[in-house]
Structure formats: structure tokens, C-alpha cells
């Protein structure tokens, strides 16, 4: 990390990262991610859903979406939503995101700027 060779900044950043990774939310998130990586069925379902959604978007743009296709997408979405490993991953990720938001609020209160906004790369 290059923070213009500022040792205090580098140390504070590393310590924040270490504490985040050691937080309950991120430990759960890491476990949930490991479970997802190890579960071929869950990963296959997610890949399938992503592929079907991409195909549907293309077809929808061309106005050629049949009721059967919509039904099969819904069935696949149902399988994804009822998969415990995927559900667990989604919930764990949300908990980690919630912690990041709390942390960002904490940083913002001290700085008087929104750190996440300044750290954002995207532009409109």
C-alpha cells in the first residue's frame, strides 16, 4: 500500500483491516464463503442462474420471452433462494456490509467528510 510513505497512516490502515477481519461479521462471512466455494451444487446453481438471467435479458430486449422461459427462471430463483449455503452466504455478506457501514459512519463523524465517497472510483 502506498500512502505517500506515511507510517502512521499505514499502521492505522493495517490495524483497521486486521480488526475487521477478526470481527464476528467477517469471520462468519469468511466461513460462509468457504462453504460456498466447497459446495459444487450451490456454485452450479449460481452459475446457472447468472447464465439464464443474461440470456433472458438478451431475449427481453428483443421482445422474445415466453411464459415457459419465465417459469423456468422463477423455478431456478426458487432453488437458489432455498439453498441453505447460498442463503447463509448472502446473510453473512449483508452482516459484513452492515459492519462496514457502521465503521464508515464512525470515520465520517471524526473527519466531517464521507470517507467512502472520497474512496469511490466510479464517476457518473
Amino acid at each position, binding site marked *: 500500500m502506498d500512502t505517500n510513505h506515511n507510517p502512521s497512516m499505514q499502521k492505522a490502515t493495517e490495524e*483497521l483491516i486486521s480488526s475487521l477481519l477478526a470481527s464476528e461479521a467477517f469471520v462468519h462471512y469468511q466461513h460462509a464463503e468457504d462453504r460456498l466455494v466447497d459446495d459444487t451444487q450451490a456454485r452450479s446453481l449460481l452459475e446457472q442462474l447468472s447464465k439464464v438471467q443474461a440470456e433472458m435479458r438478451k431475449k427481453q430486449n428483443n421482445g422474445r420471452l415466453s411464459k415457459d422461459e419465465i417459469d423456468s427462471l422463477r423455478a431456478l430463483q426458487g432453488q437458489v433462494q432455498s439453498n441453505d449455503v447460498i442463503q447463509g452466504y448472502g446473510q453473512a455478506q449483508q452482516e459484513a456490509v452492515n459492519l462496514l457501514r457502521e465503521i*464508515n459512519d464512525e*470515520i465520517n463523524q471524526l473527519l466531517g467528510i464521507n470517507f*467512502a465517497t472520497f474512496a469511490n472510483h466510479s464517476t457518473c
Partner: protein
Amino acid sequence: MDETMSEGIEIASPSVVKQKARDFAAALSETAQFKTYEHTAYAFRKDQTAQQAMQTYQQKQQSLRALLTLNALNAEQRDELERLKSEFIDRPVVQAYVQAQEELVSLCQTLGDSISKSIGLNYAASCGVSCCG
């Protein structure tokens, strides 16, 4: 350090993580980039001429918003808008503020990227920041 053990992993409590966040903010507030940003932002807020130039430019922009959206400004309107914009952004106090902001953004991006890479989640996106802030 207020930590508990879970499945052999040392868990950092929320209060510990929040303290680390405050330490991070304190370190950032001590950087040259942040201090310069604060000084230039203060100077910009206190400069009545710059504030007036900003308001005049923004009011004109607002009054022409519909035409701007349609890209339908005539040459006279476009020239006037450009002139007001220059009168605002060419002021040294504004230029100093913009440059300081760019330098602080660059530092925050480096720090945010480092956090994102280490935790496996995009920090800014997770905090609900979209392309429009």
C-alpha cells in the same frame, strides 16, 4: 484488547473495531492531504467573492437546466454559462480547494482499495456509494 475467542479464532469485539476506525480517522486527519483540504475548504467557505461566484453560476445553471438536458442552449446562453463558470473556478481559492480535494480523493482511494483488497468486499460500494456519491 477487548476480544473473545470463538472456535479457536480471536474475535475482535465491535468496540475494538470501532476504536480502530477512530484511530484510522485520526491518522487520516493528520495527513498533509487532509490538512490542506481542510484549510482550503475553510478559505473557500470564507471567501465571499468565491461564494457569490459559485451561487451566480449555479443559479444560471439551474435556470437553464431544461435546455442543458436537451443540449439546446444557444451560443449566447452557452457563452454566458462558460463565463460564469470561469469566473468561479478560475479563482485561486477555488483552484486550491479543487486541487486539495483531488489529492485527498487520491489518498482515500488508495486507502479504500487497500481495505477492499484485504477484506474481499468493495468498501465504497458496500457503504452504499454509487457513481453519483
